[in-house]
């Protein structure tokens, strides 16, 4: 049997290879096998693992969006909603994909908002890391989407953004999903979040602040521990104009703490 691709070797063979016999005697053959078998195992470097993971999540997100687009093109909202109710698994897939892929692809805004020190005593203690996950939150899947967000740690340490900065720029938040109006005007600073929480009459430290969209509207999703029942989480969806004067609340749900 011949090796038909032998001529495809990338480099000139060493002259010793040209003199090599076709077969070794059994003892020499075993010796070379032993030598090869003793090579240490290799582990995929983290950079390669990250790169391949990101490529798969991007592909996964593209698939989910293609599927969603095909569904919405083929049926009206009512039909789509009915389909979603009939097939909660499919709905969950979309929710998980949106959340998981967006976390990896869009990344974290990295707005670490330290609690106010020496500020007004009535301000909520805001220490949550505000993220811009790129998630398209929807009413039907809000609970699932927030659950996934709360369960997923950022892939890389968040970068610090000055607490006094205003909304992050779209380019900095979601380079792979630029069509999404992600920045809005939500003041994702410690002052802005605290002001919004006052409008919601809440004083807990949020465990999630996600500047995203809800029903295709720029929005912020805030998750707060339920003070009365620590096994539950309060989730508020507000317009990006949320303030103490008017929180502009779009939705409120309670979900089990993940």
């Amino acid at each position, binding site marked *: 049997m011949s*090796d038909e*691709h032998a001529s495809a070797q990338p480099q000139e063979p060493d002259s010793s290879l040209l003199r090599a016999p076709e077969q070794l005697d059994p003892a020499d053959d075993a010796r070379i096998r032993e030598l090869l078998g003793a090579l240490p195992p290799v582990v995929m470097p983290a950079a390669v693992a990250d790169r*391949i993971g990101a490529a798969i999540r991007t592909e996964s997100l593209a698939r989910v969006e293609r599927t969603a687009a095909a569904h919405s093109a083929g049926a009206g909202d009512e039909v789509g909603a009915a389909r979603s109710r009939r097939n909660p698994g499919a709905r969950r897939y979309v929710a998980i994909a949106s959340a998981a892929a967006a976390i990896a692809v869009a990344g974290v805004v990295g707005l670490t908002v330290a609690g106010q020190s020496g500020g007004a005593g009535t301000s909520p203690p805001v220490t949550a890391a505000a993220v811009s996950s790129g998630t398209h939150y929807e009413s039907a899947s809000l609970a699932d989407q927030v659950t996934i967000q709360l369960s997923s740690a950022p892939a890389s340490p968040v970068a610090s953004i000055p607490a006094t900065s205003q909304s992050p720029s779209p380019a900095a938040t979601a380079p792979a999903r630029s069509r999404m109006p992600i920045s809005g005007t939500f003041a994702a600073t410690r002052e802005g979040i605290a002001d919004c929480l006052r409008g919601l009459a809440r004083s807990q430290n949020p465990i999630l602040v996600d500047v995203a969209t809800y029903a295709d509207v720029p929005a912020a999703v805030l998750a707060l521990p339920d003070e009365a029942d620590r096994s539950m989480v309060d989730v508020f969806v507000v317009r990006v104009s949320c303030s103490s004067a008017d929180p502009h609340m779009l939705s409120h749900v309670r979900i089990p703490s993940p």
Partner: protein
Amino acid sequence: MDGSASVSPTQPAAERLSEPATDQELLAAHVAGDPLAFEQLVNRHRDRLWAVALRTTGDPEEAADGLQEALLSVFRSAGTFRGDAAVTTWLHRVVVNACLDRLRRRAARPTVPLPDEEDAGRSALADTHDPLSAMELRSEIYKALRELPPEQRAAIVLIDIEGYSVDEAAQILDCPGGTVKSRCARGRAKLAARLDPLRNPQPEEPVSSPTAEGGDKTR
């Protein structure tokens, strides 16, 4: 190797925490729409896939490119998997083919290796904590492997380094078992010719040992 249990499309494999899903279940879940199943499947086998890609190409950049290309190809064509081989075998087959294709394309467009290519390959392949002599030997082994024809190299990587059986390697390489054995045998012969002079340098003159176990064995 893989289970054959069916997968409910309404139950993502990632959610079934009580018992780990089989490879086949994860692939079926991916086909059914589970967005996390494929990455879970890849993570399960990534080190072995990486080892095969790296040792087949002999170049970390080529290996990463080939592996990514292969995995995305599997992602998109998962629905065509008929289940007549183990999922891991299929994964390895696509990865090896992608790597061999890259080597053939590279051979058709010869390039001058960058000066630090050898060092990059060595750092990715060698354990730097080992004694220098062992490192040097490994470096020579990797160098000799890179000089083999790609098909012989792939067979040796699968069987002698990664420990697959001849049957598994034959499925991965999509050729008869006899061809795999032949490629391995001839590849080993070339490796021996390349490595033996380094490991056992011939003395200038025959030297008879004056000591030990009866001394000179001349007859």
